[in-house]
């Protein structure tokens, strides 16, 4: 059986523009959530988000290139650059047809279409810029990565809302495992902080306003939680077939050993227990890991009333007594909910927790909730030996993706 390992990682988020600073801030419990600076949010009831700070794209891309890449694809390119550099992978020309890209995104080129439709509807433009379509299409990030690195193999984009990058990494894992590719770039990206998008989310009534204290706005599993916070960023991995990685002496961060995907077929916004629980069990089964072996769960943990209770029930149902021994944390408390990037960003946190032996905390935890009564690593990072970890992504629309990583030994 072919095995698949992670040999490179890259991340960009509100909490850091590379893996080291991203993880450093999570372990320190520092939140990236603040008042929106991309545009004036005064008209909104929710005026906070987890923006990538001090982001100057012209420092990172040639102007001509930048004309054709929306912010969401820029983030993917930045994270991929770090992932490719950290993996030190060099593929020969004959290997490129077995090298592909799978990215997830929930919202695609949101800034581009928000801007275009503003021009159309508010400024009565009679036509839109010819780059609108190539920038806003959901597959733009995947295509940009393919062009950047010459990937000629199976490549696609997954759009399953908040599970997009969990599914993207899982599908890429399977492409390698089942022999269709030897190396993949996989992850997710989103840059959904636009006026139109925030207005729409506002109406769903699941966003935390922060009450004048943005960094404390997102409080997953805490009894006083009031919702999620929209974030942006990207996480990209280099996945490689094990012997391919070993032949070139690559550093192996972790093995991807299991992937569970399931659908609730229940409700367009309300999560179920049964669907996510099935996804967790499928990931365990593929990895041939017993529930008792799981040391850490990086939770979906959005900080909404409903998600956190349901997710707690999922963990209890699958892990029984072991649910009280394993540890759970939601790093969304700091980097926000980065939508289609969130599964990938959180897998970076999960793999780094394994690598460093430190669990990043659930920040802003103040009050125990009787319905959320597990160990969420409140507020303080904790040293812990992690051999097996899972990362949960449960999406609006009831589409679930669970990834299981194991320390490579």
């Amino acid at each position: 059986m072919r095995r698949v390992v992670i040999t490179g990682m890259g991340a960009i988020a509100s909490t850091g523009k590379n893996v080291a600073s991203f993880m450093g801030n999570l372990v320190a419990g520092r939140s990236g959530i603040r008042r929106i600076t991309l545009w004036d949010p005064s008209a909104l009831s929710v005026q906070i988000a987890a923006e990538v700070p001090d982001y100057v794209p012209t420092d990172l891309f040639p102007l001509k290139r930048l004309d054709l890449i929306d912010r969401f694809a820029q983030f993917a390119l930045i994270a991929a650059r770090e992932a490719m550099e950290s993996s030190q992978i060099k593929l020969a020309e004959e290997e490129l047809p077995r090298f592909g890209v799978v990215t997830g995104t929930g919202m695609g080129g949101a800034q581009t279409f928000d801007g275009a439709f503003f021009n159309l509807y508010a400024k009565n433009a009679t036509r839109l810029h010819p780059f609108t379509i190539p920038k806003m299409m959901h597959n733009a990030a995947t295509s940009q990565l393919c062009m950047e690195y010459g990937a000629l193999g199976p490549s696609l984009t997954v759009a399953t809302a908040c599970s997009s990058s969990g599914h993207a990494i899982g599908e890429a894992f399977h492409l390698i495992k089942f022999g269709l590719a030897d190396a993949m770039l996989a992850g997710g990206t989103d840059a959904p902080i636009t006026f139109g998008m925030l207005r729409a989310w506002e109406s769903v009534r699941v966003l935390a306003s922060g009450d004048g204290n943005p960094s404390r706005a997102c409080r997953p599993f805490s009894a006083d939680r009031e919702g999620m916070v929209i974030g942006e960023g990207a996480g990209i991995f280099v996945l490689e077939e094990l012997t391919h990685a070993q032949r070139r002496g690559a550093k192996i961060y972790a093995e991807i050993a299991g992937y569970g995907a399931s659908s609730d077929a229940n409700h367009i916004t309300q999560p179920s227990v049964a669907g996510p629980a099935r996804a967790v069990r499928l990931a365990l089964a593929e990895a041939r890991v017993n529930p008792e072996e799981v040391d850490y769960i990086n939770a979906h943990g959005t900080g909404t009333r409903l998600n956190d209770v349901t997710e707690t029930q999922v963990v209890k149902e699958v892990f029984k007594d072991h649910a009280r021994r394993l540890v759970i944390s939601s790093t969304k408390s700091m980097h926000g909910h980065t939508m289609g990037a969130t599964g990938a960003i959180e897998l970076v946190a999960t793999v780094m927790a394994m690598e460093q032996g430190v669990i990043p905390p659930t920040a802003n935890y103040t009050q125990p909730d009787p319905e959320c009564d597990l160990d969420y690593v409140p507020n303080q990072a904790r040293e812990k030996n992690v051999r097996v970890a899972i990362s949960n992504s449960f999406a609006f629309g009831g589409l679930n993706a669970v990834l299981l990583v194991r320390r490579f030994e």
Partner: protein
Amino acid sequence: MDVADKVIEIITREQHFEPGKVTIDSTFAEVGIDSLDGVNIMFALEEEFKIEIPDAVAQNMRSVRQVVDGLTRVIEGKDISDLVAMAEGQTPVAGN
């Protein structure tokens, strides 16, 4: 500023070229302007001159001189039926 100067200015701006790289004698191929760039340049010219460049004219643009000539005819409302005829059989800008 005449049409030629304005066209060169707009191409230089849209392509982020150094001034002087594009002249009236440049072909798109030799300065690295591809078909999607061409569409972008046409869009910028339409905005600048407040005109509509018919697809048939836009698809025939392969050099700066062709752009200037075609644009001048559109601005002056002259007959462009020869350009429309030439456009038959041209490779479209985008596939799929």
